[in-house]
C-alpha cells in the first residue's frame, strides 16, 4: 500500500549520479498497482532516465489525470511536486503550470482512457500548442480501475476478458500526435526498457511537445488470448523502427557505425541520440514518412515502435507567446502593477 514507507536503509557505497543523488532519491512510494503491471515498469524507466540524466528531482513537476496510470506519479520521483488532477484534464493543468514557470521539467503521465476518451480534446490541444513537456500515455487498451471495459485504443476485433469483441475503430495516439504537430513522437513497450529509457531521456531534453505512447499490458484485465495489448501479443508483433542510445553532451560521440544505418540526432541542450536504424528506410525527420510507416506496419498486423518523428528545432508555447525568460511566478508588484500615475492618465482619458 502506498502509505507503507520504504525502508530508509542504504548501502554506504551505493552508486550516485553527477549530482550525488542515489537511484533511491528518484524513487517514490511503493506501488499499489497489481503485481506485474506494465505501468510499474514505466515508472522504473522514468526513475532510471532521470537518475542517469542527473536532473535535480525538485526541478521536475509530474502531473497526471485519473486512472491506474495517473496513480503512478506517486511511485516515482518522491522529491518532485506531483499533481494528480481531474480525469482527462492533466494536459490543461500541465499547460497552466508550464505557463507559470517555464524553468521546470514537466512530465505528464496519462492513460488511454484519460487521453484517448475523456481527455482526447485536452490531449490534442496541448500537443497543438507545443507545450514543452513529456507526455506519456501508458496505453493498455482497457479501463483498469473500473475493471475491464474497452478503451478507445482497443483494436477493432480484439476481445475483452469475457470474450466480448470490440467493434469500434481504435484511436492511434502516435498518428494523432504527429498530425497535431508534436515535435517528438515515439511509441514503446513497457516490457522493453532498453528502448524506453533512452526515449524518455531524449523526450525530456526535447524542448517542445514530446509524446510517447507506451503500450503497457494490464495483467488483470487485458493480458489474455484475443487481446492485442497483452505481453505475448505485443512481443510477437513489435516492429521496432530503430534502437536508441542517449548521449550526454560530455560523452564523446564515437563514429564507428555503418553509414546509412546509424544517425546522430542532436538535441537542444547539446546532447544527442544515436539512432540505430533497424528499418533503414525510415526518416525520423519526415512527418509524412512517419505516418506512412505507422500505416504500413499496421496493415501488416504489426505494432510499430521506436522514435517515429522528431523536429530538432521545435518552437514551444512560450516562444509563440513571446513570454519573458524569467518565470512568470517570480514576478511581483513592482513588475506587475503599473501604479497610480498610469491610472491617473487612464482616468483622464475616460472622461
Amino acid at each position: 500500500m502506498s502509505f507503507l514507507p520504504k525502508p530508509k536503509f542504504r548501502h554506504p557505497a551505493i552508486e550516485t549520479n553527477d549530482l550525488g543523488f542515489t537511484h533511491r532519491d528518484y524513487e517514490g512510494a511503493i506501488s499499489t498497482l497489481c503485481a506485474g503491471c506494465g505501468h510499474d515498469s514505466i515508472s522504473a524507466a522514468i526513475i532510471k532516465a532521470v537518475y542517469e540524466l542527473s536532473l535535480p528531482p525538485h526541478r521536475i513537476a509530474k502531473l497526471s489525470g485519473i486512472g491506474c496510470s495517473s496513480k503512478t506519479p506517486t511511485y516515482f520521483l518522491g522529491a518532485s511536486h506531483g499533481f494528480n488532477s481531474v480525469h482527462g484534464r492533466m494536459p490543461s493543468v500541465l499547460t497552466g503550470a508550464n505557463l507559470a514557470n517555464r524553468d521546470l521539467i514537466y512530465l505528464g503521465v496519462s492513460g488511454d482512457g484519460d487521453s484517448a476518451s475523456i481527455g482526447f480534446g485536452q490531449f490534442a490541444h496541448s500537443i497543438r500548442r507545443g507545450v514543452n513537456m513529456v507526455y506519456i500515455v501508458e496505453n493498455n487498451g482497457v479501463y483498469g480501475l473500473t475493471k475491464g471495459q474497452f478503451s478507445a485504443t482497443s483494436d477493432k476485433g480484439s476481445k475483452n476478458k469475457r470474450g466480448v469483441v470490440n467493434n469500434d475503430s481504435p484511436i492511434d495516439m502516435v498518428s494523432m500526435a504527429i498530425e497535431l504537430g508534436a515535435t517528438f513522437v515515439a511509441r514503446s513497450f513497457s516490457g522493453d526498457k532498453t528502448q524506453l529509457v533512452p526515449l524518455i531521456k531524449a523526450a525530456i531534453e526535447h524542448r517542445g511537445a514530446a509524446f510517447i505512447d507506451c503500450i503497457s499490458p494490464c495483467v488483470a484485465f487485458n493480458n489474455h488470448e484475443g487481446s492485442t495489448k497483452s505481453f505475448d501479443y505485443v512481443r510477437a508483433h513489435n516492429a521496432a523502427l530503430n534502437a536508441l542510445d542517449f548521449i550526454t553532451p560530455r560523452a564523446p560521440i564515437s563514429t564507428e557505425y555503418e553509414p546509412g544505418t546509424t544517425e546522430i540526432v542532436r538535441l537542444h541542450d547539446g546532447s544527442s541520440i544515436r539512432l540505430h536504424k533497424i528499418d533503414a528506410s525510415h526518416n525520423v525527420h519526415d512527418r509524412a514518412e512517419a505516418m506512412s510507416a505507422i500505416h504500413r506496419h499496421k496493415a501488416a498486423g504489426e505494432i510499430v515502435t521506436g522514435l517515429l518523428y522528431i523536429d530538432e528545432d521545435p518552437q514551444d508555447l512560450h516562444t509563440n507567446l513571446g513570454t519573458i525568460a524569467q518565470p512568470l511566478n517570480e514576478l511581483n508588484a513592482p513588475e506587475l502593477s503599473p501604479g497610480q500615475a498610469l491610472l491617473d492618465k487612464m482616468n483622464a482619458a475616460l472622461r
Partner: protein
Amino acid sequence: MPIQSVNDFVVRFANVNGSGSASANQLFARSIMRMGVPVSPRNIFPSNIQGLPTWYEVRISEAGHMGARGGCDLLVAMNPETWGEDVADIEPGGYIFYDSSRPVPKSAFRDNLTILGMPLTEICLKHYTDPRQRQLFKNIIYVGALAALLDIDMAEIEKLIGEQFRGKDKLIAPNHQALHLGYDYAKANFACPIGVHLKRANAVGDLIFLEGNDAAALGAVYGGATVCAWYPITPSTSLAESFMAYCKRMRIDKETGKNKFAIVQAEDELSSIGMVIGAAWNGARAFTATSGPGISLMQEFFGLAYFAEIPAVVFDVQRGGPSTGIPTRTQQSDILLAAYASHGDTKHILLFPEDPYECFEFGAQAFDLADRFQTPVFVMLDLDIGSNHRMCKPLKWDDSRQLDRGKVMTAEDLEAGKEFGRYLDVDGDGIPYRTYPGTHPKRGAYFTRGTTKDRYARYTELAAPYIDNMERLLKKFDTAKKYVPGPVLRKASRKTDLGVIYFGSTSAAMHEALDLLEADGMHIDALRVRAFPFSAEVSDFIAAHDRVFVVEQNRDGQLRTLLMVECGIDPAQLTSIAHYGGVPITARFIRKAMSDAVNKATGAGRKETIG
C-alpha cells in the same frame, strides 16, 4: 402635451446590428457627459452579428440615477422592423425621430407623440457615393440632428470626434461635415430645442466612464495576474480581450520586448480553468473570464481547487439562464451555482461589484483573496455592468500596495527546518502553508490530489483525517469573513422595521428606488452585500428588522436562499423581490413591488416577481 424635461429623460436608439451605429451612439452619450450631465447608456443586443435589431438606450439624469428607468421619451427609430413595439414603448407626450426618406403612414404613429421626420437616406445619397460611407455617415448625421434637437454643445461632439480619430486625422473633417449636415437640417426644419433637452450642468465632477469588464481586466493587471486562460462566451469575452490590450500596453518588458504575461485562448472552459489551476498551483496569479454555461462546465475543477486548496480567480459575467437562456441579456442567476460549485461539500468566496469602480477594485483584490485562502474566488459581474459603459469614481491604486501572496514557505524557511505540512493548520485560522514546485532540493515537495489526504498530504481514506480536513476547510472559510469586502449600510432617515438587502448591478436602481420610497413616506434601511461568506453584520442587519426584502435579478431569490441557509434565517422574515426578464431592474419596478408588498401586508415570505 409634449414632455418637458431638462437633463432628465431617456433616449432610445433602435438600430440594426452591424450598421456601425454603436460608435455614433457612444459619441452621443459621451458628449452629454462632457456637458456635465450624468448618462448611463445600455446596449440591448441580440446574439447575432449583422442584420438583427439592436437598441442603445441612454438615460440622462442630472440627479445621477444610473439604473435603467424603463420607457423612453425620445425614440430614434432607425429600424423599421421593430417600429411597432418601439413606438408603443414611448412615454405619452414623447418624441419620435425617424428617417422620412420613405413615407411612413400616419397610422404607424401614435396621437400623443411629437413626430420629427428627417430624410436621412436621401441626404446621404445626395452627399456620398460609397455605400459604406452612406451607412456610417448616416449615423453621424443623426447625431448632428440630435445635437440641434436636444441642445447638445456641438463643440463637445467635435472635440470627441477629434479624440476618437487622433492619428487618423483625415477622418476628422468628413465626420465634422456629416455632423453639421444633420445639425443644419434640424435647425432649419424643426423648432429646436424640443421639450426634452440638455443644459450644461456640473453633476459629473471627476467621474469616469467605462465598462465593468474593462475595469475588471484592468483590476487583474493591477492585481498582478500573469496568466489568463479563457474561452469566448458572451458577455465575458471583452474582459479577456481588454486584459490582452492592457497587457500589451503595460506589461511588455522594456529591455527585451518580451511579455510579462501569458494569455491562452483555450479549447473550452474546462481547459481554461485547468490552466488557471495549474498556473496558480505553480505560483502565478491566474484567472479566467466566463459566464454561466462556462461555470457549469468548470464544476469538477472547482471541487478540485477547493479540496486541494489551489487559488483561482474567476470572473463570471452573468447572463440569463438556464441553458443557453437569454445569452445577451442580464441576470444575477449564478449565485447558488458559484457559491456551492462542484460535487461534495464545497463553498466558495464570491465578490459582488456594483459598478466599474468595484469591478476594478475587486478584480485586483480577488487575487489577494485567492492566494490568501488558496481557493477559487468568483467575481460576480453581470451583463448590465460588464458590457455597458457606466459612470463611476476614478480608479485608485496605492503605490505602496504589495501583492498578498498568502502563506508560502520559501526555500529559506525550509532550509531553516520549519515544519511543513501542506494541510497543517499552524496558525489556527484554517489556512495551511504551501510551497511552489521546485523550491527546495530536499524539502517541501508534496503530492497534490483531489483524493483525501492527511495533514501532510499523504493519501488516506480514513474517516478521522478526512473529517479533520473538512472541518479545517470550514474554519478557513469562516476566517475569510474578516477579509472579504464588508457590506455597506444605508440607513433610512428615520427608524424603521423594514430592511432591504441587494447586491451587484441592482445598486443604481435600488438607490433611486429608496429615494422614491422615502418620498412616498416608506422608510427602509438598506444593506448592500458585497461578498460571500457573509459577515456577522449581515445577520445582525436581518435580526434588527421585522421584515427584510431581498432584491435580486433571478427567479428563485438565490441570494435570499443563501442568506437563509448560511445565516440560519427564518424564510418568513425574508421577502424576495425578483426581477428576471433579462432587462435590467428599474427603480420603478422596485418601488412598486415593495410598496405593493408592504401595503398588502399579508404575511411575509411571499415573492414579488416580474414574468
